[in-house]
């Protein structure tokens, strides 16, 4: 398959998928080696940008996702009117940060860090698809363990959890500040 046909196939597949597609699954679908697919996707990402396309290709949540370009956001927002992008409250963000860095984590552990019962917030984050149940802890009661969802990474535009900003320097800075 030549480069043009490959790009065409990749663009079409990205268009129909309603979730990020990994380079591996794309490679399988187009029957081209993964490395070539990856470099083509990277080149396409730059292309969308340089030709001022209304679309943007990003490497998010462990895969590639085609979306509208941020420059077109004002028009799309008006058109879509979705409440999906409603802002998160302070409590929501705080809880999400804890889940993101401490996952897998139980309700109780979240509450212990925040100092307040966080069941409602966790529930709302789960409803919004940002947090999900990822298992159960061994031990009494086998409490549910929470983690962030792929949608969380996608909404943040991050390729993986490893791309989250490191917490350690903040802990250091905080401890240096005051007693």
């Amino acid at each position, binding site marked *: 398959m030549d480069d043009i046909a490959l790009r065409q196939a990749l663009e079409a597949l990205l*268009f*129909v998928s*309603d979730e990020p597609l990994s380079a591996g699954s794309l490679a399988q679908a187009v029957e081209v080696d993964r490395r070539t697919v990856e470099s083509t996707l990277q080149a396409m990402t730059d292309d969308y940008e340089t030709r001022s396309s209304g679309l*943007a290709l*990003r490497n998010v949540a462990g895969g590639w*996702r*085609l*979306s*509208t*370009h*941020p420059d077109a*956001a004002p028009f*799309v927002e008006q058109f*879509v009117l979705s409440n999906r*992008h409603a*802002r*998160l409250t*302070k409590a929501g*963000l*705080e809880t*999400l*940060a*804890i889940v*993101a*860095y401490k996952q897998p984590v139980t309700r*109780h552990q979240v*509450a*212990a*860090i*925040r*100092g*307040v*019962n966080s*069941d*409602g917030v966790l529930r*709302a984050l789960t*409803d*919004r698809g940002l947090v999900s149940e990822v298992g159960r802890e061994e031990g009494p009661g086998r409490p549910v363990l929470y983690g962030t969802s792929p949608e969380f990474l*996608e*909404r*943040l*535009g*991050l390729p993986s959890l490893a791309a*989250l*900003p490191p*917490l350690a320097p*903040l*802990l250091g800075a*905080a*401890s240096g500040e005051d007693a």
Partner: protein
Amino acid sequence: MTEDRTGVGEFAVELPVFSGPFRLLAELLLEHRIDVCDVSVAAVTDGFLAHAADAERWDLEEATWFVAVGASLLELKVGRLMPKAADPDEEDLLGGSPDLAYARSLELAAFRTVALDLARRFEDGSRYFAREAGPPEEFAHLYPDVMENVTADQLAAVAAVALRPPPLVDLSHVQPVRATVEEALETMRDRLASLRTAWFRELVADCDERIHVVVRFLALLEMYREGHVELSQAGTFGEIEVRLTAANGAA
């Protein structure tokens, strides 16, 4: 009941948990040295009214002080009596050790900083809209069974999220009495704007419950404090006349 006429706070109360001057009781309660739930605010109020009846004159400042303290106690009591979600208890939250509590406060501060960063990323991310429409309809014939992996529970979960009413504004941090006083203030200002002079009795004629009368009275005291109204009362327990002040009338 012995009474010292030098001040309203000095009137004595006789309660199962405490006997002595009210001012001392109020301090103990506000410092949580005595459980407010063990104190009948109504009994204290009766004591105060008895004291006021004996007093030679009704001192508005003393009355205000008593009402303010009474309101604080009621608020404390309401706070204690209202059911709360089962929070982990304090010891759980602090892990039992002050050092651990301190470490956790640092950790929480770090998470709060990170949360700001997440908020920024969400903001940037919200400008990208992915396509959720799936394959165009010309491919629809390829997947005849769209319900293959759909379960009733899954549908219910999706429906619950879509149909859930928007969350109510969380008012738990608002002191209930103060919020109502604001409303009462508005009501009183509206009424007095047209009536200009009225009996307190008229201003509370539409109140169904005693708490509403109390709240209107507090609002009235607030207006008096700000010089928006003048109050006069012929005698103890006499009718209270409320008059909009000239300055206020000009506005």
